[in-house]
């Protein structure tokens, strides 16, 4: 078991900077998710850790060992590839046994470990088959089994679920979480799927343009996004951002949104007061907005454009002034398109962002 430390990693492909001075520490046994849109550098960072890419600058540590210049096989890692990378010319048994045989283990030892791994991933009935005779989900299990039987201190997963269909992905997601609680290897998991990230990670590192923009526990990332990018990337539908202007007078600090005056919580009021007269963004999660028929303190005038019944809730598309917002309401809420309503929210749930650079104001 071992922690991982990225120290000022830089990796450039031609003119693209895939990793720009990235530093990250991952604790022993932690499940860390690298999340971001495609091209943000998350896979590159993983491959730098695996030794499949060589860093242009910076150091990589696994435990106390500096592994920056080591070959993949000397790093004591195991990896699951996005394409599964199951060897087509070997049976399931030989696929899972591949790494164990390379370690020079005895025949009985290999057999015992392969059978244990196959059992964990429900592959015991398929050991004699070739990958071509398996379904996509089974091949994916082979890839996971092959990695975990190595009992490496560090387990790397590169979008392991992205090639599965939706239902299978849901099953495997829970299974991976169970597996991690069982084997407790330090795990780095790369994905562009924010639901996977929220569901699996002990912590999530959100990446954008080769940098980590926020690294925190899933619910902190969800509730307190560090900037508009994180707020917009995490959550489905994403966070709403409405424009406002900060105003300070004798009564205190408030923010004008259209004709409404929103009074911020006392916590952020001083920080907002410093931005008096400047434009600002109000970040609001769709589920933190509620409809009321009458105007209350902290309400916004809104016009219902679209109503989508989604079973567990209704998703509304609203026009607020010149802007649009998504609102999630209970399924039994009576609401029709073209209704004019008031949007109510708790001032504590608003995330204030600087309109100029998108950074959160706290």
């Amino acid at each position, binding site marked *: 078991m071992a922690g991982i430390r990225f120290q000022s990693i830089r990796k450039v492909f031609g003119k693209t900077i895939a990793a720009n001075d990235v530093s990250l520490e991952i604790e022993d046994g932690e499940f860390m998710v690298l999340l971001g849109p495609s091209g943000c550098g998350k896979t590159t960072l993983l491959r730098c850790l*695996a*030794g499949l890419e060589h860093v242009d600058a910076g150091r990589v540590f696994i435990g106390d060992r500096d592994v920056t210049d080591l*070959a993949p*096989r000397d790093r004591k890692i195991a990896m699951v590839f996005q*394409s599964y*990378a199951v060897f*087509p*010319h070997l049976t399931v048994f030989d696929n899972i046994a591949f790494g164990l045989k390379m370690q020079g283990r005895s025949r009985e030892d290999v057999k015992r470990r392969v059978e244990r791994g196959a059992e964990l991933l429900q592959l015991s009935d398929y050991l004699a088959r070739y990958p*071509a005779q398996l379904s996509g989900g089974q091949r994916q299990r082979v890839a996971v089994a092959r990695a975990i039987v*190595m009992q490496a201190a560090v387990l790397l997963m590169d979008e392991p679920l992205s090639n599965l269909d939706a239902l299978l992905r849901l099953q495997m997601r829970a299974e991976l979480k169970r597996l991690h609680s069982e084997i407790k290897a330090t795990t780095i998991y790369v994905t562009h799927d924010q639901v996977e990230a929220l569901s699996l990670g002990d912590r999530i590192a959100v990446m954008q343009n080769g940098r980590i923009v926020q690294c925190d526990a899933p619910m902190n990332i969800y509730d307190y996004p560090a900037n508009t990018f994180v707020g917009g990337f995490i959550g489905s539908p994403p966070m709403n951002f409405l424009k406002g202007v900060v105003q300070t007078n004798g009564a205190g600090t408030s923010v004008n949104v259209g004709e409404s005056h929103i009074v911020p919580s006392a916590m952020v009021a001083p920080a907002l007061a410093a931005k008096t007269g400047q434009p600002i963004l109000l970040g609001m999660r769709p589920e933190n907005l509620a409809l009321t028929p009458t105007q209350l303190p902290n309400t916004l005038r809104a016009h219902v454009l679209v109503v989508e019944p989604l079973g567990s809730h209704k998703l509304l598309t609203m026009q607020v002034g010149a802007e649009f917002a998504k609102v999630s309401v209970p399924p039994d809420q009576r609401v029709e398109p073209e209704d004019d309503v008031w949007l109510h929210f708790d001032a504590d749930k608003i995330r204030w962002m600087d309109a100029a650079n998108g950074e959160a104001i706290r």
Partner: protein
Amino acid sequence: MRSSHSRRYISSRVLLYGSAIVLALWTLVPLYLVALAAFSTKQATFQWPKPLLPTDFSTETMEFFVNTRGVLGSVGNSVIVALLTIVASLVIGAPGGYALARFRFRGKDTVSLGLLISKMFPTAILSIPLAVAFIQLDLYDTIWGVALIHTAMALPFVVIITSGIFVGVPRDLEEAAQTLGCNRVQAFLRVVMPLALPGLAAAAIFTFVISWNEVFAATILTLRNRTLPAQVLSSLNDSPLYYRYAGGFFMIVPALIFIFLIRKYLLNLWGGVSK
């Protein structure tokens, strides 16, 4: 509706099998006629109309050919030269193909193009300087020298064929092998090679055919240690018809055996056709 569908199915089957039969006959009939003449009496070769069945079977013609001085030795030479050529061109060419398939490097396109350009250079022009060079290097009139030339001839094809094969082996598989404890060479030998085997077999067949059939360089560069085509060529013009049939048959058979042996590697062996 249903009957017109099945009629179309039947006609497409007929077309398929018809074409296959025509293609097979195209190859098999000449082979059969050569074999027939090679195993008939000398007189039967000149009969007209020719009997299409072996009416007077005889090994007389073959015996005559085989016992001609130099023939057996030249067959041995041909086999050795072909095998040497296969080994050398795969050992040199496959890594070349691998490099073209896997790595990006300066001058990569020039190298690919250069391989083809080398094939545009006629051997006839090279032959005299080559003979001189080989004499100086003590390679003249040796099977090593012939194998060297055949390797040079086959190499561009081997590089191009194998690079096509290696491109088809996903890089992920090699990387997976590396994370599972292989170094680059082990990953190549344990994962890439087995997957590339069908293509390597095709390259081997191709190389064999090039070497087995090559007559010009073999004639120029040898005197006593001739390969079979060179041997046959030198005596063909002065020999009777039945001798030529026997020679032709003898040229064909080893090639057929070789292709038959290596044929199974052309097929994918792992649990049927993979996607």
